């Protein structure tokens, strides 16, 4: 970013809001003091110097990823696959819900209501222990299926809102130009709807990364599960969970900023 160019405005902002900054500093200090005193109270000894080896390590084989970063890769795999599937589930469900067929509407509505009104953890267990054995799904497959079904239900509402927001005239114009319903969806409605719903859809991606931590409950060695193992191996509870939280934050926060930025651009483009 062009911080040099914006610095005068930033200084002005700082001067104008000095009381807010003071208050914010005080608050952070209080939190730090609270943690420090807790550490002393429990007799905790920080061992940050031992943390890097769990992230990345230099051995005779060269650089080797530590357990936490290996977990992060699994997290990425689960989230990425689930996101793709969730988009497919979401779009299909949205089109079903807007279809003329009663059966399609009922199926879609039933799916969305069931998913949205039961806990994700229960769904993961249900798929892993009940559906998984029946269809021969392993833990990874179960986690991906559970997460994508869950996020797909939410994504379908976003898709539906996007499709409904496209003016009826666009449908009619496409029909009058000789397009079938399917082609109208593909060439007129979805491209326009996608633009409008990209910000909330990216939000689904952020949620998905966070929710993937629940896959740790069915013995998948993703970031949270790795953190769990490292912390119980080393008893560095504070350091490990601070680090794990920071890694999640480092991934999701830029994504959230991107979402916010996209939202702003969409609004100005409309």
């Amino acid at each position, binding site marked *: 970013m062009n911080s040099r160019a914006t610095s005068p405005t930033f200084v002005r902002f700082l001067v104008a809001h000095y009381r807010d900054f003071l208050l914010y500093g005080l608050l952070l200090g209080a939190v730090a003091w609270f943690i420090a005193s807790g550490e002393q109270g429990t007799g905790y000894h920080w061992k940050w110097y031992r943390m890097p080896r769990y992230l990345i390590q230099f051995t005779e084989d060269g650089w080797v990823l530590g357990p936490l970063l290996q977990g992060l890769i699994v997290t990425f795999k689960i989230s990425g696959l689930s996101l793709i599937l969730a988009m497919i589930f979401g779009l299909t469900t949205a089109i079903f819900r807007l279809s003329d067929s009663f059966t399609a509407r009922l199926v879609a509505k039933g799916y969305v209501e069931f998913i949205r009104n039961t806990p994700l953890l229960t769904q993961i267990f249900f798929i892993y222990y009940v559906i998984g054995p029946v269809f021969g799904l392993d833990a990874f497959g179960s986690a991906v299926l559970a997460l994508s079904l869950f996020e797909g239900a939410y994504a379908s509402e976003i898709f539906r809102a996007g499709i409904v927001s496209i*003016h009826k*005239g*666009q449908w*009619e*114009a*496409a*029909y*009058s*130009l*000789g*397009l*079938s319903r399917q*082609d109208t969806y593909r*060439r*007129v409605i979805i*491209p*326009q709807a996608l*633009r409008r719903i990209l910000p909330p859809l990216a939000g689904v991606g952020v949620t998905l990364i966070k929710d993937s931590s629940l896959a740790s409950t069915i013995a998948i060695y993703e970031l949270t599960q790795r953190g769990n193992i490292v912390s119980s191996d080393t008893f560095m509870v504070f350091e490990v969970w601070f680090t794990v939280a920071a890694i999640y934050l480092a991934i999701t926060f830029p994504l959230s900023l991107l979402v916010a930025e996209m939202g702003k651009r969409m609004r100005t483009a409309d």
Partner: protein
Amino acid sequence: MSLLIETIRHTFGPKTVLQDISLQVASGEVVCLLGPSGCGKTTLLRLIAGLEELQHGRILIDDQVIAEPRRQMLPERRGTGFLFQDFALFPHLTVLENTMFGLAQRSSKAERRAKALDALEQVDMQDYAAVYPHELSGGQQQRVALARALAPSPRIMLLDEPFSNLDTRLRAQIRDQTLHVLKSTGVATVMVTHDPEEAMFMGDRIILMHQGHIVQTGSPAELYAHPVNAFVTTFFSDVNAISGTVEAGAVQTKFGTIKAHGLPDGSAVDILFRPDAVSVRNGHCALSSHRGEAAPNGYRTASESVSNIAEGRDERPLENLIEADVLTTRLLPGATLVHLRIPVNGQSDTPDLHLHARVPCVSPMPEGTKVQVHVPLDQIYVFPKS
């Protein structure tokens, strides 16, 4: 490329919006569906396009049934072009892509491109091929929408209030261009409008609708000069209205005796005539705006006849010429509107008559000017009192 509609009836819930509608549009003809909002004209257009499901009756294009109850051809198969009120351009596509849209089924991409460019050229928008719709003005968007609808060479063009989103000056220009483009393609066209001037400008024929019925069908001149009822008369212009009673098969008015065709004696009637049927004579300058006469001669003929009457050398009955006072005059585009008061001669219990005359020139007259007024009897319409 002709359209035939037979006995269409349509209801929305308990409300009947179309009742026994039959009409025909020939190739190359522009027919205007005219009527106040809520008269069912747009529903009729949407039925033809297949955007609304037909409930009763039949629609045929080129002798092929495209819709009857429970057997509807899908809108995309009908070969109708539809120009929407809000244009409904696709915002995510360029002007050229928009125009190429309806040509999807056709041959090679190069051919589609050439055809789309042809259509854009027809509406003089070829320079904007790479531009997105939101960058265009309203008039340009309308032209692109027209090109897009015409590019697939539809059998029938349907226009739904295509000019109502344009400002007044642009509207005149765009509708002139639209008319010429439609006429040059020779496509049968149905246009919906609520504006009688627009219908007269665009239409070879006008179908005037009211509350789901067709009230009158005919050329603009027929509807304007020979309205079948008071609704038709008042729809095309502001009118002068006076009341009267039928006596011995006729109505006595200050302007003469008018035959009351088929109306029983003693029935109350409305006597209607348009402001432009009223000619006004002021001293030596006679002003009139009689229709039905050739434009340059019409003015002179009318004024001569009026001045002849005034001098009493004409055979015409003198009661056709009435004394009136000017209340005020207002200049309108191409005409002057004269507000007149005709004093009542004491014996009558009716109040003074207030008339409007629309005379074709800039002719301001001070208040209280004494003038003589003449209304030709064939331009006075008598209808049962509503």
